[in-house]
């Protein structure tokens, strides 16, 4: 199921309110149940959203859990209460999972149609990001091919400084072109 138009806007608003509500929950069973509920409500997006959440949001909360556990054991010599950490990890996972699932299920550009300025800003920015990422990657590959050794941190920094100057010049011109093209097509 893919939500479009008004339905997409309702889903996005519900998701936004739900994110704030979920950020205050600490009951592990409830959080786990909500993850299952989201997966049942959006089954087609569930697998992809779960993979993305596991790769992006969950590792950080797990790293913080481990760091604090080590600190509590080695420095404070106490056994930490794992309940709060489990709730934190589940809360982070739930919000990330539901965000990816909902954004995968809605037609975002269609939902933003009543706000053409916002749509155009999103298109202009995302188009720029794609082309500038290619530029940054090619520049990095060029630097590697020019050096007989692996680039050091200083090489990387100098290269980043040069790339930034190029990006600032190019992006201003490209963004204007994309924006004009969008405007001429009625956005």
């Amino acid at each position: 199921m893919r939500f479009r138009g008004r339905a997409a806007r309702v889903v996005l608003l519900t998701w936004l309110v739900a994110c704030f509500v979920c950020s205050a929950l600490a009951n592990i069973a409830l959080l786990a149940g909500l993850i299952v509920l989201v997966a049942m409500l959006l089954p087609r997006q569930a697998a992809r959203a779960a993979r993305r959440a596991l790769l992006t949001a969950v590792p950080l909360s797990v790293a913080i859990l481990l760091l604090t556990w080590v600190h509590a054991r080695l420095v404070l010599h106490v056994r930490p209460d794992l309940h709060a950490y489990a709730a934190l990890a589940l809360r982070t996972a739930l919000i990330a999972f539901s965000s990816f699932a909902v954004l995968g299920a809605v037609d975002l550009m269609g939902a933003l149609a009543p706000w053409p300025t916002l749509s155009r800003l999103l298109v202009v920015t995302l188009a720029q990001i794609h082309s500038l990422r290619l530029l940054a990657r090619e520049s990095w590959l060029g630097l590697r091919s020019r050096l007989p050794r692996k680039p050091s941190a200083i090489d990387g920094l100098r290269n980043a400084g040069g790339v930034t100057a190029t990006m600032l010049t190019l992006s201003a011109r490209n963004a204007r072109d994309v924006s004009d093209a969008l405007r001429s097509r009625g956005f």
Partner: protein
Amino acid sequence: MHIPDGFLAPTLTIPAYAVAAPLWVWGTRKHFGPSQMDALPAVGALTAVAFVLQTIMIPLPGGTSTHLVGACLLALLRGPLVAFVAESLVLLLQALFFGAGGITVLGVNALAMGLIGPLAAWLAFQALRRRAPAIGAFFGAYLGLQLSTLSVALILGLQHHLDAAQFPTPFPVALAAMMLPSLAITGVIEALYTVFALRVLARGRNTG
């Protein structure tokens, strides 16, 4: 440095939105022209540049790497409010499409990374630019990043103080975990990068 969704309760995230929202409106109206249509390419371009800067990884000894933030450079080039608007959009895109940061903590992250740090960097640069612009840029970027990191650590500490069940990590642990890498590595890298980028941009302007 971003705080992810779920770390902070609405008691902190909603007031942060209330503080950030008027600043977003003011920054957009003040710096991106009276006509939104004309402003869009500039906002989009600056946001895209800031976004891509954060994807440029700098290799570190030991096989690890870190990434640039770039908000301080934007503040030195275009002013702190422009940096705030662009960095806020970067954080929104990262939260929506890349799972970094989050939608509920957008206001907190934007104030810490997009306003406090870049504003401090800009003020330090303004104070030192006539005597030694390169030192001003280096010191400003270093100070800006440290203040951004400190702000994030402080807000996490405040959350722990308000409700330890929401964020169980004590403030000293969060502070040390965030500030030590920032003081020793990330701050120096960001400061050097800012100096290099300003130098290249100045050379480009001088030559043509």
